[in-house]
């Protein structure tokens, strides 16, 4: 991924307040942390929850210093809201992977709110982490009544 074997993997989640950006980044950070990586995660709360632009950075690897991804250094950029794709695209490094709602067959989502989980499913294809780790983490982050829908959404993204 990078010339420096110690350099962290940089994953940014972006969207608007209320679209599940923070939740998606929490789940992703949980998955990599439980696998034994050093993880740092940065985001800004406050005004962002009123429908404004939201970003959450997750960095992991053997050594992570700043919790914030430097300019143009995202290895993966997961955008949950179509209107934000062009706004945040410049954060992606050349050769980095951009995932957007266009990568998901949204008509098949069990509920529109599960788009973040479907994109996590899509992101999961980029890593060789055991699938069960993702599914376990999903369960700890949602109420039981949402488990079935999220499992389905995750499968939808992962099977793309």
């Amino acid at each position, binding site marked *: 991924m990078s010339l420096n074997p110690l350099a962290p993997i940089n994953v940014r989640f972006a969207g*608007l*307040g209320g679209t599940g950006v923070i939740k998606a980044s929490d789940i992703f*950070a*949980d998955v990599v*942390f*439980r*696998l*034994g990586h*050093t*993880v*740092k*995660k*940065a*985001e*800004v*709360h*406050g*005004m*962002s*929850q*009123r*429908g*404004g*632009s939201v970003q959450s950075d997750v960095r992991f690897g053997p050594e*992570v*210093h*700043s*919790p*914030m991804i*430097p*300019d143009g250094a995202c290895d993966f950029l997961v955008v949950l809201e179509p*209107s*934000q794709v062009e*706004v*945040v695209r*410049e954060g992606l490094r050349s050769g980095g992977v951009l995932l957007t709602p266009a990568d998901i067959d949204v008509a098949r989502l069990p509920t529109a709110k599960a788009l973040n989980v479907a994109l996590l499913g899509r992101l999961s294809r980029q890593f060789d982490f055991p699938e069960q780790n993702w599914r376990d983490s999903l369960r*700890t982050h949602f109420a039981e009544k949402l488990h079935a829908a999220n499992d389905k959404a995750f499968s939808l993204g992962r099977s793309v």
Partner: protein
Amino acid sequence: MHPSQDSSGRLLLSGNEAVALAALHCGVALGTGYPGTPSTEILEGFGALGGKAQWSPNEKVAAEVALGAAFARARVICTMKHVGLNVAADVLFTMTYSGVDGGYVLIVADDPGMASSQNEQDSRRYAEAAAAPMFEPADSQEAYDLLRTAFEVSERWHLPVLFRLTTRVCHSKSPVTPRFPVGVAPGETGAPTPEFIRNIAGRVMVPGHAKPAHKRLRAKLADLQAWNEAEGPNRVERRSAVLGVITGGISYHHVREAAPDASILKLGLSYPLPMKTLRDFAASVERCVVIEENDPWLATACRAAGLTVESKDDAIFRFGELNVDRVRRILAHDSSPEPMPPRGKPPELCAGCPHRSSFEVLKELDCIVSGDIGCYTLAALPPIAAMDMMIDMGAAVGMGLGLRHVLPRDQAKHVVSVIGDSTFLHGGLPGLVEMAYNPPATGHVLVILDNGTTAMTGQQEHPGTGRQLDGAATYQVSYEAMARAAGVKNVVTLNPIREKARFKELLAEALRKDELTVFIARSPCILAAGRIVAWQKELKAKEAAAASECGPDCTCGNAPGGAEEDGLEGNCRAASPDAAAGLDRAGCGDPAPQC
């Protein structure tokens, strides 16, 4: 809090969560504070972990409650955002003189870059000005570890200490290896048992006591500085002999990434500064650079001590938070224009938010709006653009009165003060008293936007919600009774959504009169409405059991509140016969729809 845990027992925690856990493990007897981004989750987390945590009406009261507990030898934390320390500054500047008997850590969260604040003031200046030791953790692990050190310092020198976080430390998550709670580890004793020991000369800060207290304070700081030199939580990392960086807080991590070969002096206790350590470090490298967010406080202190250090170009880097790219620029003396961050979508009031309705009314009546701090400040932005000023918590009332006092009559008649419920109780209450004490010739109109929660910071409880931090029922203050007790004749409660036309009509009438009017625009925050309604139902069920205690005029079937014995109107939820009259109503607090 259900944090991620890895197989080696490490937890993935935000800085705020780490402080909450540390407070629990330190045996903190009481946590107080007022919500404020980015500090809010500390007290909530401490409460969720089982600690005794409570929101106060404002930071000053929170700091005073904590001080009383610390006078009784208890271990306490008090949390607030940077501007909250302005409110609590009065306590701070003299409690360093008196000192404390129990450990007192005042946690203050700065917001460089103003992610959700009205300024980017630097709390390090408070440490120096008030002579309070200041700790500055760089990440969650340090936040956890340094809180314990902060208590050790506070209890050893009998001083309240400041614990400065910044937005990125508060809200970034990183791994934390927790230690044993105090009293559990071998050789450690638990937190002290509270007890009152009289010390009039030490705690009554009249000049005769305060003069020697000031000298004691300076002697303590000199002693603490010597300790900080010898064994303080500072660290020298030797790498390059060419480039050395003096830094602390989150900037440390940016420096490690931007200049991996640089030697670093990382400060953990930044006041009183370990000047000899700084001098030795600066002399040990060819080029010494101070990297700090906000004010050039550290660089100035170094230079005042005669050290040769470089610092950031304050024409550029004093503004906003630092990051890896900016630190690279500082180290490279690159003051060229920075790339503009992409323009994201600004936040806005939620669809269905009662504030939308209220501000539509204010706009339709062409009001000059003296505003305040909360979600409703978003009404200053287009397309609503119906708030004319916002400075600090509670200022809506005073600024509105000032406008009324001096503006020509035709303009003065349009001035309205608008403030949220939590903000009113925080800082607006003295303004209400001023309003009746020095009424402008044209009268005045104050609108309290009561959405039943501290919405902006994530729906915290406050004295107007009738619930404590953990949701437990408590006395619910009545804005209506407060306004009348202050001397305001006209008090109107209405629902700004369901009674929008009435609101407009009555506001227009109030603006015409040369009298004082307080409106309580009451409709729950739509994000909190479900919780509020469920709680109200529960309360109603409880009150129904005591329905027979209601007064003869009551039509609601609910029990009167506990203040009735005091001659106040208490919590009776009946709409009085005067309610329909709107202005001049003398009924009790809540609007008819709840009855």
